[in-house]
């Protein structure tokens, strides 16, 4: 009567067809994500003379040329914007991690004076967004206008990340800390020698998230920075691709032979800008998959 079925063995033809249909539908989702990106990549590397052959569904370049990237590399504004974005991302992330982990450590110590008050403060900050104009006026008053610091320090502490790190610190066994205490360790030693090394995976994950956030940030830069020399890449990209201000990128065309500049295709040049702006995220993406999704899944199993 009762049959024992091997786990994972398809039970019937209908079942197999059902699974195949699901696999195909999911592959279609992947294609919808990938095709537009590969299309831009193909467009950016195509021979300028053959750009017309690139359709919206082309995923391989027609011919091969790096002219678009050479135009970008010769544009001082564009190169400067990459440097600015790197400065904002590196300095910003370092400050994020330092300030967030120090605060998370302090807030998880029971002896912290005024702990309940500070926790209440964190919740208030989490639920109530202050207005754009009041923030703008504060930055102006502090003399941070047109300074990279106004952008670097924005979101120094993401309260959600702060809480994630606090949960991590809370899970460190009390016995470990007690033992260190017995050996005469103060809070500084406990923080540096016990907590930080133990929280390394969490801190690495938050670092990736903070880093992606800084790299992608454009809005604060657009309202606080007035000097185009200070603009980060995303802001230049917005000007060029979203606002269609081609003059800002072609301004340095003088560096090119007239012939080459005349053949340039704006669509392809825009595509190259988008590719450059995505590149760092694509490079660290495998790390994000490794740390974050693994963490979430394992966390889910543990619960």
């Amino acid at each position: 009567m009762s049959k024992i079925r091997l786990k994972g063995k398809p039970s019937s033809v209908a079942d197999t067809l059902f699974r195949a249909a699901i696999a195909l539908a999911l592959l279609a989702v992947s294609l919808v994500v990938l095709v537009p990106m590969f299309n831009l990549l193909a467009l950016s590397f195509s021979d300028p003379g053959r750009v017309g052959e690139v359709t919206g569904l082309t995923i391989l370049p027609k011919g091969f040329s790096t002219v678009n990237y050479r135009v970008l590399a010769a544009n001082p504004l564009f190169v400067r914007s990459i440097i600015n974005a790197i400065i904002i991302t590196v300095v910003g992330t370092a400050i994020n991690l330092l300030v967030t982990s120090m605060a998370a450590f302090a807030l998880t110590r029971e002896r912290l004076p005024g702990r309940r008050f500070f926790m209440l403060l964190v919740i208030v900050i989490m639920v109530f967004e202050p207005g754009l104009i009041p923030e703008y006026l504060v930055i102006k008053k502090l003399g941070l206008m047109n300074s990279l610091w106004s952008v670097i320090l924005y979101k120094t502490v993401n309260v959600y990340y702060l809480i994630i790190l606090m949960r991590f610190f809370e899970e460190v066994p009390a016995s470990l800390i007690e033992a260190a205490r017995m050996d005469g360790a103060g809070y500084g030693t406990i923080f540096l020698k016990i907590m930080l090394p133990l929280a390394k995976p969490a801190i690495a994950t938050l670092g990736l998230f903070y880093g992606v956030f800084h790299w992608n940030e454009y809005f604060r830069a657009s309202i606080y920075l007035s000097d185009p020399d200070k603009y980060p890449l995303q802001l230049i990209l917005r000007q060029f691709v979203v606002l269609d201000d081609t003059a800002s990128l072609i301004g340095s065309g003088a560096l090119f032979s007239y012939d080459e500049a005349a053949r340039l295709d704006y669509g392809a040049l825009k595509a190259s800008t988008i590719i450059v702006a995505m590149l760092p995220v694509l490079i660290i993406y495998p790390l994000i998959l490794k740390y974050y999704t693994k963490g979430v899944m394992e966390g889910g199993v543990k619960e």
Partner: protein
Amino acid sequence: MLRPRTLRTRFRQEGFLLVLLVPALVYFSVYHLVPMAGMSLAFQDFRIVGPSKFVGLKHFKMLFSSPAFFDVLKNTLIISSMKIILFFPLPLLFALMVNELRSVLLRKFVQATAYLPHFLSWVVIAGVWISFLSPSSGGANQARGLVGLPPVDYMTSKSAIRWVLFASETWRSLGWDSIIYLAALMRINPSLYESADMDGAGALQKAWYITIPELAPTMITVLILNLGFFMSAGFDQVFNMMNDSVISAVDILDTYIYRIGLLNMQYSFSTAANLFKGAIGLVLILGTHSAAKRITGKGLW
């Protein structure tokens, strides 16, 4: 047993904890607390020099008598409904489908590609979509052409643009938002399925009678927590996908606040609109938090 510490070492030790907290407190003050206090500007007339004059509800009266404000409010509610309620079942469906995949390689590939757009900026996504939807060379219209349909200029069509917002939001968040369901799926006790197998239940029956009920608490949590952000509707997306032809269909509270505040420099009026949005948002967040806590035992904090 710990050695009893002298008052002095205690003071030094706990003082050190406060020192660790100082940088975060400075940041909170500059970017959160002082601006929060600065929202009192909504009740004043802004002056560049000298103290601003208290004018009571003047700016709120102006706001509620402005027809533009109600258009913007309507757009916010429509776009939020699409992105929160209409979108809601899609990540769940996606997770259920991924869960059915037997091939680990295929599963990893689908997940890796579907999560990717979450990490791209809205500037990049707008760039990708503007290019993809281009009436002359975009992939979407090329695909329409294959089946004999005429091209559509989606980005400048008032009737299409909200669907562009919905579709690009789905493109960006479908995979990422499914993670929470995939994690919940892994927690379901496999013996439930085994006994259903013994009873001869099919795949759909198992999904309906086991999977969906088991996922219900997660679904409720996701839905009500998202409702807390109903007044936001996604500034960065709209800001980067909006253009003059479609502004009347997609202008939301946040883009309106930005425009009247920073472009028209009506600081007090903009802050009043912002305070209105913040107050409703606060009620929604506190309401959904307590609802989540009551229904599932887990809240926002």
